[in-house]
């Protein structure tokens, strides 16, 4: 085999390998949906965050606009402080928007849904969401229903 053909084959091999890596990265993994752009952070205070975790989605009208970037517990007010990183291109949420923890499906993963408010000022980096609804805990609900039934 001449040097020329050998080099062509090696070139084909390397190109095929890199193309395969590219296909895997772009088509199979979530690289093109990963939030790479700038984000701004707002915090919200919840009584109970349920199964929310870091990297949980933040959605508005069901569309992904950011992710949970930090969860801390404040032992003065006995509540959880959740930091939301919202993509910079969605920077027109009214300052009195409401954050609620919902569950995808009946038992699926939990996410934060942002409900836009009515104020003229927009949310900006470091703001705190004043209105936040805690997660629905299935056990508590079932407990309440059973208690209601018993009291009847």
């Amino acid at each position, binding site marked *: 085999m001449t*040097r020329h053909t050998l080099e062509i084959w090696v070139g084909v091999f390397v190109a095929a390998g*890199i193309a395969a890596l590219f296909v895997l*990265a772009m088509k199979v993994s979530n690289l093109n949906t990963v939030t790479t752009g700038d984000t701004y952070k707002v915090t919200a205070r919840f009584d109970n965050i349920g199964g929310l975790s870091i990297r949980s989605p933040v959605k508005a009208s069901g569309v992904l606009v950011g992710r949970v970037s930090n969860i801390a517990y404040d032992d003065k007010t006995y509540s959880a402080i959740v930091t939301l990183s919202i993509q910079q291109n969605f920077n027109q949420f009214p300052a009195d928007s409401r954050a609620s923890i919902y569950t995808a499906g009946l038992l699926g993963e939990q996410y934060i849904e942002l409900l836009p408010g009515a104020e003229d000022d927009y949310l900006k980096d470091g703001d705190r969401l004043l209105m936040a609804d805690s997660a629905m805990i299935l056990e508590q609900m079932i407990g309440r229903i059973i208690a209601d039934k018993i009291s009847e």
Partner: protein
Amino acid sequence: MQNIVCWIINCFELLGQWATHLFERTGRSALFLSRIFQSIPFAIVRPWLVFQQLYSVGVLTIIIVLVAGAFVGMVLGLQGYNILVRFNSESSLGTMVGLTLVRELGPVVTALLFAGRAGSALTAELGLMKTTDQFSAMEMMAVDPFKRVIAPRFLAGFISMPLLAAIFSAVGIYGGYFVGVALLGVDDGAFWAQMQKSVDFHEDFMNGVWKSITFGFVATWIALFEGYDTVPTSEGVGRATTQSVVHASLAVLALNFILTALTLETN
């Protein structure tokens, strides 16, 4: 009584022999690796030597990787569909095929095929070179066999493995796609969307790439060391070739468990 004591002493002797031999070989293989690292710069300035090895290690392994990848992916599609359809969740077939191939099967099966196809060839080649005193002849001509023979082969194996694993996974996913979507009627959009939703670039894809790099490193190292450390007889070359495949495969499987345990613990 005397017999029993003799027998016990014999046992200890065998154990001691085995342990010393093991430590000796481990030490020699570490020294071997450090000499390879020292010789790598000399291989990089002679890329032609690396290209030749890339051809015999990488290009000639593509066919088996393509065929194996396609069939493994097709089986995953078929088997996964049959299991998932019982739970009415055949739309997450993409998740199953994608995650299994990218995280586990891609790197591991490719490494096993690589050890069998390329590793055994490397061992046999080096073993025969040692048996026919070619290394001594090179040294006589002031040619360092590490720079001329071993480092280019090591680099070629190290570069080929991640590329081969990526080809395996990509072909496997299209194999699963073919069976799942084209033959069994899973929805086309759901297949890709579910896959993209659950395969994370950093957690899963990069994890697979790191695995394949590690396996390439280990499999090539073992193959080259077994060849270089051959007992210089025809029987020795045969044994070294077998050992190269067995040891590399076991190392890959054990390492895979460790790497999976380490990466799953963090999330």
